[in-house]
């Protein structure tokens, strides 16, 4: 399987000297195209930092990130921004949508920023899949948490990005809404051949993924293929993390 995103010996240091914190301490990992990967680890293990570096939101202290065949090191802020706009989708834990825009406008936002017109058939397909057809004219304040996350998922899919990053996408949701969002992420991988990288601390959420990557103290601790909530819990217990 061809990797969609690769990290090579990533190091991210905050501060300097005695107070230096190694948020990432030599992370090497590959994320296959059309694969759903979950990143797990205890709080402070560097999950968010890794995701930010992979997505071009933050620059690592050393090491290299590639999205498709593009190396991110040395890219200007503008080039990184354009890359995110065209080739990366995001679903954050909270504050995903602009309060001033309707759901439909939020979904089209990345295309709007690029000055591109959405493909109506694709838009229709995405909106239908996420069951948002009759919510498009509502503003975020008028949507439930689950609906808001579904709008964010639709937005991430609209540009058909190389990779979608999701940072604890179900962290603020009840289990039913969470399950909806996770099934959608999985179906977009299975049926639409999307690549998804999701940060989570929830074994149930990780169970939706094809693979789980475990982080501890800024290093890769291990991984599991075709995980189930059970196997993830077992791993965590065994590893004592």
């Amino acid at each position, binding site marked *: 399987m061809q990797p969609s995103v690769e990290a090579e010996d990533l190091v991210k240091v905050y501060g300097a000297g005695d107070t230096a914190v190694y948020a990432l301490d030599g992370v090497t990992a590959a994320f296959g195209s059309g694969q759903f990967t979950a990143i797990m680890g205890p709080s402070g293990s560097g999950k968010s930092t890794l995701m*930010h570096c992979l*997505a071009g*939101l*933050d620059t690592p202290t050393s090491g290299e990130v590639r999205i498709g065949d593009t190396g991110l090191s040395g890219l200007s*802020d*503008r080039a990184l*921004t*354009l890359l*995110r*706009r*065209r080739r990366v989708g*995001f679903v*954050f834990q*909270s*504050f*995903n949508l*602009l*309060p*001033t*825009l309707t759901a439909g406008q939020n979904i089209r*936002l*990345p295309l*709007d*920023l*690029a*000055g591109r017109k959405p493909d109506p058939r694709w838009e229709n397909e995405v909106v239908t899949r996420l069951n948002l057809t009759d919510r498009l004219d509502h*503003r*975020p*304040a008028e949507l439930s948490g689950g609906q808001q996350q579904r709008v964010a998922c639709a*937005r991430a899919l609209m540009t058909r990005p190389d990779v979608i990053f999701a940072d604890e996408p179900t962290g603020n949701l009840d289990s039913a809404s969470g399950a909806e969002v996770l099934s959608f992420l999985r179906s977009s991988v299975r049926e639409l051949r999307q690549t998804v990288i999701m940060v989570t601390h929830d074994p149930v959420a990780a169970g939706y993924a094809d693979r789980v990557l475990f982080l501890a103290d800024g290093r890769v601790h291990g991984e599991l293929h075709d995980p189930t909530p059970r196997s993830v819990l077992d791993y965590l217990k065994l590893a004592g993390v």
Partner: protein
Amino acid sequence: MLRAALANLNHRKARLALSSLAICLGVAFVAGTLVLGASMNQAFFSSFAAGAKNVSAAVSPPSPGKARPGSSGDPSVPASVLAEVRSVPGVAAAAGRLVGQAPLIGSNGKVISNGEQPGIGINIPNDGALRGFAIASGHLPDGAGQVAVDKATAADEHFRLGQAVRVVDHSGVVRAFVLTGTIDLGVNREFGNSTVTAFQTATGFSVTGRPGYDMVVARAAPGVSQGTLVARIRNLPGMGGYQVRTGGQLATAEANDAVHFTQQFTTAILVFALIALVVACIVIYNTFTILIAQRGRELALLRCVGASRRQVFGGMLIESAVVGLVASAAGVLAGLGLGWALQRLFAAFGADVPSGPLALTPATVAVSMAVGVLVTVAASLLPARSATRVAPVAALGGQVDAQVKAKVGWLRLAVAIVFAAAGTVLTFAGMRDVTGNSGFVEIAGGGCVCFVAVLALGPVIAPPVITFFGWLPGRLAGATARLATANARRNPHRVAATTAALMIGITLMTLFTVVVSSAQASSDTAIAQHYPVDYLVQAGRGGQTVPPPVVRALQASRALGIVAPQYEQRATANGAGVRVGAIGRGALGFSVKPTIVSGTLAAVGPGTAGVDSSKLTALGTRQGGTVAVATPGGGSRALRVVAVYNSAGVTMPDVLISVGDYLRYFRPAGADDVLINAAPGVPPATSRAAVDAATGSDPLLVVFTQADYKANLAGRVNQVLALFGTLLGLAVLIALFGISNTLTLSVIERTRESALLRALGLTRGQLRRMLLTEALLMALLAVALGIGLGAVFGWAIVHAFINSAGGEGVVSIPYAQIALYVVIGVCAALAAAVFPARRAARTSVVAAMAEA
């Protein structure tokens, strides 16, 4: 957690800095305007303290001539009174003051006439302490052949000490004097713009031809009070008819005279102080409202951990009072600097404003500090009250930033509509009201009331206006402009409050421009319509005339078309005192165009007359009736009335007779003035040369041209515009600071949102452009409303002027100037957005997302 705390601290510092700056600038603006106003008042009064300086008692003629100093009919105080006053026990020194006409001949060989005022001559009291002026350079005349000139005139005419200057004496003889020094009269309004020459007392009498002094002033010996001295002088024999006042009374009377002259200016300064106050209040209040709204969560957290509402409130009270106090104190200091800068600026514009030491009165400090502290506290407590009223837990969870729709209360709407209606009615009433100044007061009141309505309606008006202006940028610039439009209208209350200050500035600038430009256009057309003369030749000294040979020479010139001498004097007709006059042939109906009520002016000839319609009743006559004009010889001539005219807007005598009859009845030495029009097709240079040739030999004759008059008027208008423009510009500057402040606070508030946009692919450039567009839209909102209001009320004021002038005048909307205001407003708003835009673009995406 550490990151969040650090970031929050950073923001709190930024917020504290911004709010302090808002208070400081607002207070500085108020204090600066007050300092300037007080300084000018003080300078006026001290200048009159100079006029009445050291004076313990003053003796004036029975009814001091107010109209024109030194005109021949003025009563005076004879020298014998001076001698008597000198002999009164307790008088240390006494002096006579003389004020009369003494036209001064300028470097061009012609009498200097500033706005038709003949030059003034004064004497130099021999008691140095009792002089009303200071020596600016050189020394005072110590011989009969010497003169001192006021320093402004000396500078204008490039006079040098020791040179000869020529003065026309009361009999019309030109006399040469040696210039020994220049004198500084301060802002003595008594002499207006006239030239002032100072002579030794005897010379002064012989030049001005005055029969006596205009005032005798005395200085008391030590230990003698002003009251005692005045009582002793009153007891002198033969003092019955004279007015005897104490030095204090004199100072007050003269200062009141001066304040009357400068009333408009003082009023203007007060109005500006008021505007400053309102603008400052708006800026401070708005800043604090936003700050507290942003701190809603913090307050809610305090409540959650057990702080009572009173504790939260007390904390806020102390905090805002301390910030308000410190920042206001800084503002007062800054205001002192601002007042100084304004004074320099006025001086640079050549405005006739007295400059003295800066006056920082306790009232200025108190008002400025009170504004700063009270507005700050009120602006903190009101929102804090509503914030603490919400259940603590609800406030914690709520998203601070989600407000998209404004809830506009019915009460607000109703009040706004009532105000708008009342304001409109008042304004229309004011436009109809032609009695004195009350119409303008009504319009000003109506304008203020309408303005309050617009302020109250701001949150309702703002969103559609912003959508309207955002349409085109949205088309052109795409998503960033559409996001900016959405952001600008997301909080209508805030945007309305933010733009209110700018709107005030733009409204007043527009209103002022419309009024001034209409006044100018009106006077231009009035000059052209009613007085379409090319030249006006006049004697440069009151009571003197244009000699007949000069009139004949002018009439003989082929370059000149109509040359019409005008004559006028007071006389008795049908037992009533009227102005009887004659106007040379050709001018009537051409250069001088009154409205004809009945008959025709062409019929006025030997034995006939025209009468002003407003005098028909007083004269008890009518068209076809008679007027009997008493002649100086003692006889009376009965003339038949062949024309009745309305002289509104035209200078015409009450009774118009033919030139031939006038010369026979009154035997004048010459014409009062001569109206001249160039012959058709003659270029201005040629006609001017012809006029100069005919008048050149006589230094006393002054030639006015319409071009001179218009240029003079335009110059004055531009000076006024520049002055007011500066003051209003300051208001606009403060308003723009308010916009910058709001934007910065909005940027802080929307940090998380900007981070999201940046993550989704908004480049730094796009983010900057988004904020610039938002500022642009706010500026356009303010500029559109301001220009609309300003133009409408300017138009109303001009109409009131026109109505009170009997339908004379035109409304002129200076489009270019208004377009300039739009450009200035927009550019300034963009400048105001630069700092917040840079701040937003600098923030790193990850750090911003870490905050919540």
